[in-house]
C-alpha cells in the first residue's frame, strides 16, 4: 500500500527535516510504527493518508507511492476512500451529534446511495457489536466507546487499510485491553497500521514493527511482544505528616465519599482506578479545600495566566525567581510566552509556580497521558527531586508502569477511596482486578 524511498519531509519555516531518508514498503497485515515524540512518526502517519503535505505546505523530497500511484496524483479526500483513519483524541474527531448521524456523514462523503445507508450502518454496528450505541449522543460516551465509534466510522466506508494514531493514549488499562481485543476481531478484514510508543499494551496484535528515531527507520522486523517500561520506586526519608480531609460530594449521577489522606513530606503517592471512578473529582476537591496543595492539571497550560515565563513565576508573590529559573532550565526562555513552550517545559514551569507559592503537596492529574518514554523518565526525575527537597508528591494515573514510581498507593472505586497500600499491592491480584488495574499480560 505504501512505498517510500528516500523520503524526507520538512515543515515550512523549520531549519531541519522531520523525516530524513525513510525507505520502506508496507505490505498487507498489521504493522506497528513506534518511536519517541519528535521521531517523525506522526508526520509519516499524516503522509500515509495524504493529510500532509497539502494541509501544512510541507516540503517533500524522495518518492512516496500510495496504492501504486505517486502521492501527488491524488486529490484531497481521494486516498481516504481506501484508507480509514482513527485519531488519538476521542473528543476532536467527530462532526455530528449522534453515532448514527456520524456514520451517515461518512457514507454521504463516500456518495453511498441514500437507500443503502441504513442497511450498511445496521450491518456495520452489528458486526462490531455496537448496535446499542446507534442513537446515543457521542458527547455522552466514554473515551473507550468514542474510540470504538471512531473505528466504526472508519470501517463503514469499507477501506482497505485502517490507520490508528495512538488510539489508547486516553484509555485506562482495562479499557485499552478490551479495545485491543475488540479491534482484533473488528479489523479482521482490513490491514492495520498503528502508531504507538507503548507497544506493550497491544499484546501480540501485530505482525511487524517499524521503529523510527529522529526521522530515520532504525528497526524493521517481525513484531515481538515487549514488556512495558520499568520504573523504580522513589524512596526518600519521610518527615512530618500532613493531614488532608476531602469532604463528600454529591452530584446527580455520582457520589464521592468523604475521605482522609495523610501524607508525609518526601512521600510519593499514586491514586489509581478506572476512568470515571472519581479520581479527578477527588483531586480537584483536595486542591480546592487545602491551600497547601498545588495542582498541576493534565494539560499544564491551563495554569498559566500571564504572557511571559518570568511574570508567570512571579505571579502573586514577591520572592526572587532567578535561581529557580536556572534550576528549571528555563533561563533562556525568560520572555517566552508560556503557551509556546514544549510540553515538558510547560510542566517544569508549572512545578516552578507551585514551588514558589510554597505548596507542600504537589498533585499531578494524569501526568502520563500521551507521554513517551523520555518524557516519563523526565517526570520521574522531577518527582524524585521534589520528594528529596521535602515536598510531598501525589499523582492520579491509570498508567500502571509509571505508577511503580510511587511508594504509597490509594485506590479509587465508584467514588470511594481506599488505602494506603504499600508496594505489596502489586501482588494482590484480586484487589487489582476489582479496581480495573489488572489486564492480561501485565500485573
Amino acid at each position, binding site marked *: 500500500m505504501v512505498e517510500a524511498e528516500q523520503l524526507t519531509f520538512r515543515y515550512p519555516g523549520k531549519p531541519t527535516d522531520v523525516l530524513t531518508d525513510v525507505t520502506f514498503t508496507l505490505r498487507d497485515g498489521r504493522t506497528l510504527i513506534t518511536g519517541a515524540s519528535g521521531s517523525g512518526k506522526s508526520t509519516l502517519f*499524516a503522509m500515509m*493518508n495524504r*493529510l500532509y503535505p497539502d*494541509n501544512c505546505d510541507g516540503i517533500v523530497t524522495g518518492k512516496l507511492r500510495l496504492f501504486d500511484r505517486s502521492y501527488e496524483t491524488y*486529490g*484531497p*479526500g*481521494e486516498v*481516504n*476512500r481506501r*484508507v*480509514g*483513519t482513527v*485519531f488519538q*483524541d476521542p*473528543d*476532536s*474527531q*467527530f*462532526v*455530528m*451529534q449522534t453515532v448514527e448521524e456520524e456514520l*451517515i*456523514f*461518512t*457514507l*454521504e*462523503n*463516500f*456518495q*453511498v*446511495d*441514500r437507500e443503502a*445507508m441504513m442497511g450498511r450502518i445496521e450491518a456495520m454496528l452489528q458486526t462490531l457489536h455496537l448496535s446499542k450505541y446507534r442513537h446515543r449522543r*457521542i*458527547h455522552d460516551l466514554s473515551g473507550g466507546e468514542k474510540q470504538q465509534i471512531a473505528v466504526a*466510522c*472508519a470501517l463503514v*466506508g469499507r477501506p482497505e487499510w485502517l490507520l490508528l494514531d495512538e488510539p489508547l493514549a486516553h484509555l485506562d488499562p482495562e479499557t485499552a485491553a478490551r479495545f485491543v481485543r475488540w479491534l482484533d476481531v473488528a479489523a479482521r478484514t482490513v490491514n492495520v497500521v498503528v502508531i504507538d510508543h507503548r507497544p506493550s499494551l497491544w499484546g501480540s496484535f501485530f505482525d511487524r514493527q517499524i521503529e523510527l528515531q529522529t526521522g530515520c527507520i532504525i528497526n524493521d522486523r517481525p513484531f515481538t511482544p515487549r514488556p512495558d517500561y520499568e520504573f523504580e520506586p522513589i524512596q526518600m526519608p519521610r518527615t512530618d505528616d500532613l493531614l488532608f480531609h476531602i469532604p463528600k460530594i454529591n452530584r446527580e449521577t455520582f457520589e464521592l465519599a468523604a475521605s482522609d489522606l495523610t501524607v508525609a513530606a518526601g512521600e510519593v503517592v499514586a491514586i489509581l482506578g478506572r476512568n470515571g471512578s472519581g479520581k479527578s473529582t477527588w483531586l*480537584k476537591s483536595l*486542591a*480546592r479545600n487545602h491551600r497547601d496543595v*498545588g*495542582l498541576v*492539571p493534565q494539560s499544564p*497550560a*491551563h*495554569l*498559566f*495566566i500571564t*504572557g511571559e515565563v518570568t511574570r508567570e513565576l512571579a*505571579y*502573586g508573590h514577591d520572592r526572587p525567581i532567578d535561581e529557580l529559573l536556572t534550576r528549571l532550565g528555563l533561563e533562556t526562555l525568560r520572555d517566552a510566552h508560556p*503557551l509556546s513552550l514544549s510540553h515538558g517545559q510547560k510542566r517544569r514551569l508549572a512545578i516552578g*509556580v507551585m514551588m514558589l*507559592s510554597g505548596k507542600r503537596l504537589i498533585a499531578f492529574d494524569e501526568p502520563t497521558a500521551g507521554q513517551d518514554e523520555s518524557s516519563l523518565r523526565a517526570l520521574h526525575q522531577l518527582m524524585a527531586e521534589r520528594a528529596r527537597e521535602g515536598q510531598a508528591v501525589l499523582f492520579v494515573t491509570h498508567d500502571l508502569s509509571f505508577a511503580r514510581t510511587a511508594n504509597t498507593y490509594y485506590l479509587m472505586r465508584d467514588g470511594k477511596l481506599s488505602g494506603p497500600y504499600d508496594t505489596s499491592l502489586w501482588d494482590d491480584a484480586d484487589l487489582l482486578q476489582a479496581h480495573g488495574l489488572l489486564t492480561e499480560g501485565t500485573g
Partner: protein
Amino acid sequence: MTFHEMNPTVKFVTVTCLMFGLAFMFNPWTPLAVFIGTLVLQSLFANVSWKRWGLFMIPFLLTAIGTLWTTLVFGKASSGEVVFVLFGNNVTEENVMLAVTLALRVLAFTALSLLFTLTTDPKRFVYSLMQQGKLSPKIAYSVFVGFRFFPILKHEMMQLYETHALRGVRLETRLDHVRHVPKLLIPLLAGSIRQAERIAFSMEARAFTGDKRTTYEVVPVTRSDMLLASLLLLLFGVSVWIGIR
C-alpha cells in the same frame, strides 16, 4: 400542516420578506394586524409553549415600551392639535401615531422572528439551506462542528476558571468571572485552533472535501409549505389593506 414541519428555508424567506415589507409601512394598523395575525397563525399551525414565547417576548416588550416613551417625550414638535402635555413637551396627534407605529413595529418584528425561531430545528435549517439554498457543504458542516464545539469550549472554560482560582485569582462573584475573561481568551483560542485543526483533518480523513456527496436527510418542499407561505403573505396583504384603507 404545521410551522414545525414547514421547510425552514421557505419559512425563512417568507418571514424575511414580511419583515422587509413591514419596514415600508408607516401606520400603526399594519404592524398591529401583522402582530395579531401572526399570533393567530401560530396558535393554529404551531405547537409553541406560550410560556417560552412570553419569556422571549419580555425584553422586546420593554424595547417597544421604551420606544413609545422616548418618541413621546423627545418627539419633534409638530403643528397640529395638542392632545396632552408630557414633561413640558406638547404631544400632538401626529406624535402619538408615530410613537405607536414604532412600538407596534417592534412587536410585529418580534412576533415574526419568534414564529421562526421557536418552530425551527437549527440542524434541519442548515440541511435545508444546503438543499434549497445551495449553501456550500463546507460552510454547513462548519456550523455542525460549531454545535458540537460549544459544550467542549464551555467545559474548557470551566476548567480554566477552576485552575486559575486555585492559583489565587479572585473569582468569587460573577463580576470577578467577567473581569477575568480577557485572561482566558488566549488559552481558549489556542486550544480551539488546535481542536479545529484536528477536526478538519478528521473530516478530510473521512473523505469530506466539500463537493459531491449524497444526502441522507432530505428536507423537501411540499404543497403545505407553499400553503403556509401563502397564508403569511396573505396576512401581510390584508394588514397593508387595513393600514392604508
